């Protein structure tokens, strides 16, 4: 059973400091992110109207969020009309309880799952386990994470931190039936997973999914995937329960034209994803339940700067271009949402009361690569800086920044501080004490000059 991130100790800098020392992890992450990064750049670069598509994606999402109340009711009506049942969940507990009761009503104790971020966010698998229900992940990477009793570390590629040799080890160790002579060839590993999963698909009477999009106009849910395992889950079982964040809505069917281009190109770096499943209400007698999940989203919507994070379509392009994610890995973020988007989404959804969550807005050099790659133009650096102003700062830092602000706000004070520094310039040690050792542990300090620029100007240029 995969573990949950909730209540994870530590802080981003501490977690990341451990991760950067793991050379296997660094190699795996570098190779994987650079490969997807390159593929994305190619398929985005070939479209002459990418910026227009991006602007359209942003505009459609903004329009949806502005009138979310209306579109949600429209969605509910459409799904109900098509024979589905709609449930409203305020938070994780409520959503987990609803799903648990729906499963209980079927009498089943085993369910199959389509890869879904929303159900990971609420810790559904763990909540179901507590109610005696076993949830089986069917996405290959999620399966690897679940079998390895591990945490996902990437939105699209949850097992990105594992290489194929490690995956083979996990399969040998944890799968009931493994083909003889299993190698670490991708084809052999996929075949082993296929045999393992096929039985589950045929046996299971209940499936749980999320959705990439919901169309309010028609009541349609949309799942994009690569493996086809999702479609098995969506179509074979008698009961389908979809847990979907309220921000996944799109107003109209034709809006999919934009997002079915933006998502695969940004996500897997493909022009088109192999499988797109769409369903409306109850299909061919299947009992369909839609659980609409808030879990903090309404609060995010109330924040003028932070609300743009709700435009996110979970493509993970920002992770793949992020130099910090590439070195720290996904686990350091302590959330199902790692990388730049996680650094702005997790603190907004979970709050910033824990040390870990308060450190997330600082998990960025503000280089801006994420904003540039984002298919719905979320200005992640802007939100990071805004969140940093809302974090409770440590008293020592607060005091230091106040003094710095006081000195910098006046030319005379600044000049005096500079003269003090130049006077004692020979006495500055090679290694600084306290928190400033963070600089001198790996970097030399620049030499302090004999004279500041302003003093030089005053002496030579002032008429």
């Amino acid at each position: 059973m995969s573990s949950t991130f909730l209540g994870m100790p530590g802080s981003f800098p501490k977690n990341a400091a451990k991760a950067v020392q793991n050379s296997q992890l660094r190699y795996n992450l570098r190779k994987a992110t650079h490969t997807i990064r390159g593929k994305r750049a190619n398929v985005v670069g070939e479209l002459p109207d990418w910026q227009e598509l991006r602007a359209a994606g942003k505009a459609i999402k903004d329009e949806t969020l502005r009138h979310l109340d209306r579109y949600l009711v429209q969605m509910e009506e459409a799904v109900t009309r098509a024979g589905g049942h709609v449930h409203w969940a305020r938070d994780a507990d409520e959503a987990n309880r609803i799903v648990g009761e729906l499963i209980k009503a079927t009498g089943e104790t085993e369910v199959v799952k389509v890869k879904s971020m929303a159900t990971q966010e609420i810790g559904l698998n763990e909540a179901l386990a507590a109610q005696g229900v076993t949830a089986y992940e069917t996405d290959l990477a999620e399966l690897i994470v679940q079998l390895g009793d591990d945490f996902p570390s990437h939105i699209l590629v949850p097992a990105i931190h594992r290489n194929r040799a490690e995956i083979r080890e996990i399969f040998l160790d944890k799968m009931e039936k493994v083909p003889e002579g299993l190698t670490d060839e991708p084809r052999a590993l996929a075949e082993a997973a296929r045999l393992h999963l096929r039985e589950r698909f045929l046996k299971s009477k209940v499936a749980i999914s999320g959705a990439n999009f919901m169309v309010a106009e028609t009541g349609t849910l949309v799942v994009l995937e690569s493996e086809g395992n999702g479609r098995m889950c969506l179509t074979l079982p008698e009961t389908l329960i979809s847990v979907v964040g309220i921000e996944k809505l799109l107003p109209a069917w034709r809006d999919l034209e934009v997002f079915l281009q933006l998502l695969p190109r940004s996500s897997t770096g493909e022009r088109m994803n192999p499988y797109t499943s769409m369903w409306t209400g109850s299909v061919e007698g299947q009992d369909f339940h839609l659980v609409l999940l808030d879990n903090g989203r309404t609060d995010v919507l109330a924040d003028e700067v932070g609300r743009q994070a709700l435009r996110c379509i979970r493509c993970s392009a920002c992770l793949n271009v992020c130099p910090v994610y590439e070195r720290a890995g996904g686990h350091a973020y302590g959330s199902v949402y790692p990388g730049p988007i996680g650094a702005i989404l997790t603190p907004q959804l979970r709050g910033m009361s824990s040390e870990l969550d308060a450190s997330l807005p600082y998990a960025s050099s503000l280089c801006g690569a994420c904003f540039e790659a984002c298919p719905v133009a979320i200005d992640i650096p802007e939100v990071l800086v805004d969140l940093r102003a809302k974090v409770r700062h440590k008293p020592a830092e607060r005091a230091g920044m106040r003094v710095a602000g006081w000195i910098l706000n006046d030319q005379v004070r600044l000049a005096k501080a500079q003269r003090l520094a130049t006077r004692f310039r020979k006495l500055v040690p090679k290694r600084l004490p306290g928190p400033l050792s963070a600089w001198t542990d790996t970097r030399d300090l620049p030499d302090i000059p004999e004279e500041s620029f302003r003093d030089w100007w005053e002496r030579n240029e002032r008429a």
Partner: protein
Amino acid sequence: MRVALFITCVNDTLFPGTGKAVVSLLRRLGCEVDFPAAQTCCGQMHVNTGYRDEGVRLARHFTEVFAGYDAVVAPSGSCAAMVREQYPKLVRPGSRGATAVAEVAPKVHELSEFLIDVLKVDDVGAYFPHRVTYHPTCHSLRGLHLGDRPTRLLQNVRGLELVELPAAQECCGFGGTFAVKNPAVSAAMGADKVRNVLGTGAEVLCAADNSCLMHIGGTLNRQRTGVRIMHLAEILAATEEAQ
């Protein structure tokens, strides 16, 4: 043309040579350079670390000091981006100082922007017979969209051999207080940047931001690589007579 030099607090305190280079370069190109003595800091460190109130005070101070100039030139892509891109959001329309921000912010130029867009020169008559590689810092690349302006200027420097830096667009890992708040990741990013710099065989690493150069240069020095860091202004100010 009468221009105001915004030296930036980092250059003022730690890299006065860059300021002197800007003055001599702009004078050589016929500008009258003024240094408003009341200037201090753009406030980027405070704003980007989460101390908005202090940042707003510094932003208001900045706009008061530089009001009335035709153009303000800063030898820093990062500080110029702060003023032009972040000030209008920081000092909200309708609040005190917003009018001054709207008036002053668009007149602030990073050095290479000023040379190419305002003065319309891409050959400044410099001479620098060395092998140089250029790192486009994040805020000059993705904030100001400087594009090829700095490298166009460098390509026209007599004697200079410009070598391409692999993975140039990747952040060096400085990131202001990020460098001390997340030292492990910052150092890991810096190490990769240094590896790429060394791969070029360049004698000099050039950029439009001394703060990033301080981080990369600090790593280059610690590793005893012998590669020098130089601000773009210092290379452009170099002439045959001065060699």
